[in-house]
């Protein structure tokens, strides 16, 4: 092959790189590993993690059942190793799957249109707010303090240089947004009100009332949802103008933070302000139904600096995981799953509240996680729980100084009654020992 190119040596092929910049040594990387060695290497790393521990962590990343069917589909090379479906004639599988994902996202959220995916819940939320800014041409955003702290951090990073201003709206003893404060702060410069439901404390927000207040000022109601399974039991945010949904709960492993898939769903009239790819239904030259990427003039590869977003590569395979998972669960499965999560949370809450000095922080309705006040620092309790191979509640103090000694407990259908009882027992024992 080298002869055919006319070059005398491989070195010749790199002749356009000035000599001074050519690496004259081997890269200093670990020695090459065979397949067996690679597997051993990663098994060793896995053993240094939390295998064998029971976890009560949620806070935006949830451990739910996953069917082997989902992975079976994801591992089909035709899905796994294909590119973005720009060549529609040989990408109909991916395109139809995206169209089904968009439909499921609409059905789940009660919205009219949805895109093909965003990087995750935090960036979907951020882009939803930027979208509201473009639609309203206003720059002031009211953000509930109960929105995931990391989502708010991402929003802040993105918006910092875009001349937007943010105002935080606090929460009441129910754990829900302070509607009175919201009503007092909103005005005709407000682009959007951002809430999360269930919020970071696991409490379900009164989306209908929030949307009503937003509408009164011609601002948009933007709702973030980090726990998609809640939508099997909780009223969808149909009154919202834009919804940013994290779909990790639908078939994606926690995987230390990603990859997951976010999605933005919205009212149809805002289609042209949506960021990201969209699959649309159309017909081919013989009138047969087919799908293609559409409305690309919103996107960076056409519109460049005037695009609605810089997103190109999205989370297509994760969106496929969500689609397969939701199809497997179906209507009844999702409803039953949501009901189980609620039942486990109610049971765990009752078990913990039996302990002296332990009680729930907020009165509002919860889905599968809730904030609990302990008589001492959560950090100290957790250190003890680790001895029983329990990863305890997430301390809220670092994020909310006013919630020192409070922890966020998450249980799902994967948490057994026995594990919940063991947690309660271990906390009881810990608290019995004076500090």
């Amino acid at each position, binding site marked *: 092959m080298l002869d055919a190119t006319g070059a005398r040596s491989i070195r010749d092929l790199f002749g356009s790189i000035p000599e001074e910049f050519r690496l004259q040594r081997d890269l200093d990387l670990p020695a*090459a590993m065979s397949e067996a060695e690679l597997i051993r290497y990663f098994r060793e790393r896995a053993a240094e993690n939390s295998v064998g521990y029971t976890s009560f962590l949620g806070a935006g990343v949830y451990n739910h059942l996953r069917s082997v069917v989902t992975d079976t589909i994801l591992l089909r090379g035709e899905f796994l190793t294909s590119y973005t479906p720009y060549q529609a004639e040989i990408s109909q599988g991916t395109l139809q799957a995206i169209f089904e994902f968009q439909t499921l996202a609409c059905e789940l959220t009660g919205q009219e249109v949805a895109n093909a995916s965003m990087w995750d819940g935090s960036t979907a939320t951020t882009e939803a707010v930027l979208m509201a800014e473009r639609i309203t041409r206003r720059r002031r955003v009211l953000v509930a303090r109960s929105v995931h702290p990391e989502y708010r951090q991402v929003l802040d990073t993105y918006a910092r240089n875009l001349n937007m201003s943010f105002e935080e709206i606090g929460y009441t003893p129910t754990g829900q947004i302070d509607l009175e404060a919201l009503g007092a702060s909103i005005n005709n410069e407000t682009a959007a009100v951002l809430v999360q439901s269930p919020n970071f404390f696991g409490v379900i927000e009164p989306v209908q009332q929030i949307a009503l207040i937003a509408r009164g000022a011609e601002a948009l109601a933007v709702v973030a949802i980090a726990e998609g399974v809640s939508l099997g039991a909780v009223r969808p945010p149909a009154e919202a103008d834009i919804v940013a949904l994290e779909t990790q709960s639908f078939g994606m492993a926690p995987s230390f933070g990603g990859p997951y898939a976010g999605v933005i769903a919205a009212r149809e009239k805002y289609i042209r302000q949506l960021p990201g790819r969209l699959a649309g239904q159309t017909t081919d030259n013989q009138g047969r139904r087919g799908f293609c990427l559409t409305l690309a003039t919103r996107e960076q590869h056409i519109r460049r600096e005037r695009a609605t977003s810089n997103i190109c590569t999205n989370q297509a395979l994760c969106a496929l995981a969500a689609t397969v998972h939701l199809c497997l669960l179906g209507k009844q499965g999702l409803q039953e799953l949501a009901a189980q999560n609620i039942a486990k949370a109610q049971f765990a809450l009752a078990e913990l509240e039996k302990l002296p000095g332990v009680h729930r922080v907020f009165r509002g309705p919860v889905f599968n996680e809730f904030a609990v006040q302990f008589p001492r620092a959560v950090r100290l309790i957790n250190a003890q729980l680790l001895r029983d191979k329990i990863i305890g509640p997430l301390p809220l103090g670092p994020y909310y100084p006013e919630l020192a000694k409070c922890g966020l407990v998450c249980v799902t259908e994967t948490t057994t009654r026995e594990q919940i009882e063991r947690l309660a027992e271990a906390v009881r024992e810990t608290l019995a020992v004076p500090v």
Partner: protein
Amino acid sequence: MADRIKKARRNISQNEGLIFEKSAPGKRGMELPPSDVPPVDVQSLLGSYARTDLEGFPEVSEIEVIRHFTRLSTWNYAIDLGMYPLGSCTMKYNPRVNEHVARLEGIATEHPYQPQQLAQGCLKILATLQRCLLEITGMEAATLQPAAGAQGELTGLLLIRAYLQSQGNPRKKVLVPDSAHGTNPASAVIAGYEVENIRSDNRGQIDVEQLRNIVTEDVAALMVTNPSTLGTFEPRIAEVAELLHARGAQLYMDGANMNALAGVAQPGRFGVDVMHLNLHKTFSTPHGGGGPGAGPVLVKKHLEPFLPVPVLVERNGQIALDPVRPQSIGKVRAFGGNFGVLVRALAYILAYGPGIRQATEDAVLNANYIRKNLEEVYDLPYSAPSMHEVVFSDNRQKKFGVNTMDIAKRLIDYGFHPYTTAFPLIVPGALMIEPTESESKEECDLFIEAMRSIAEEAASEPELVKSAPHHTRVGRLDEVTAARKPVLRWKRDTDSKETVG
């Protein structure tokens, strides 16, 4: 025709409607274990917050789900089926062991908030990957947080802005060559910069003389893709860096084309201040029909204080995530990034070790082999030496009324995925071909033969090429109607009666 097309022949393809059209009440594909706690009455517990119905949700059995998605999958082209010569996309083989290790218990199961002493395995993976990427690029500090290349660009530009701000003036403009990916200008805008597009010189390279006039006190950075989207190395890159630095501006490198450099040249050595990598390109993590990817950002020391939080640090033999960096730009994504993608990229690097250089050499050899074998039949608008990809134009075929898109669609009939069409924008009617190192001589030869055959068809039977593809399950799609009357979701009431997919 049967003789001409060697790689493919027609095959039965199953029809399949939308999953919603298969739904029948009461079916389901997944059973949950029974609950072991007392049931609750969801409606009375949640009251007005309760959902009453899941209108429109599909109800199908397990085998229906398997068949549905398996049938859909057979309608896709994929690397697993053959060469995918998409220029600038680096569609290389995705090793299956990488999928295996990313799914291990103890890797896939880990929560980002678990105590760091119980996450040392994950953190070691991140630290090792970071070390490897720094060595490959010759840079000095890194973040693995960005979820994709475009987010890497934004992160890099925010770092530049924060750095310049700390020097007193964030400046106003980012320079973007006309050959750049569309993400470059789009990212610059989110970072709060105006975009100034700059023209390439007549060799398709950065016009250094022009640059001298443009780089003023207002310019924050120049975004360069190197090798450029023409697949050629910017020979005066160091001079460009020097010019920028002398005027207080920064050099950003889009690492989309790193597959031409890994193991051969380190961008850190030719003056780059900040760059991103696309792990889903150079480091073989699967594209998955459009994602997920990962876009780590690598910087020189002076930009390190501004990196997103948390930052990986080593303390007493343990690896920790340090959340406190007073000058940090903040977070660009919740949690640590697309960890599962990072795992796969590390597995790829560990499988090669220093041999990664050979992969680069093979990729460049394949591209040059294809160039040499096609340059008689396709027009080569820029003659600079090719690295990992080669860009032709449809100049010679245009006189028969055949354009790059037609040739691309005809390539589908020959059993290949098209090359990248109509990009870079500086080449009218571009055919951008990147074979990667994964392809054997045999596959490259089949591709060359197909491209030569199509060139002949363009001259002798142009209609055959212009109406391609002929053998796919759908023909060219009506994209105009799709955009004019967007149908972006299935609806029960507008359900077309069609059962043929």
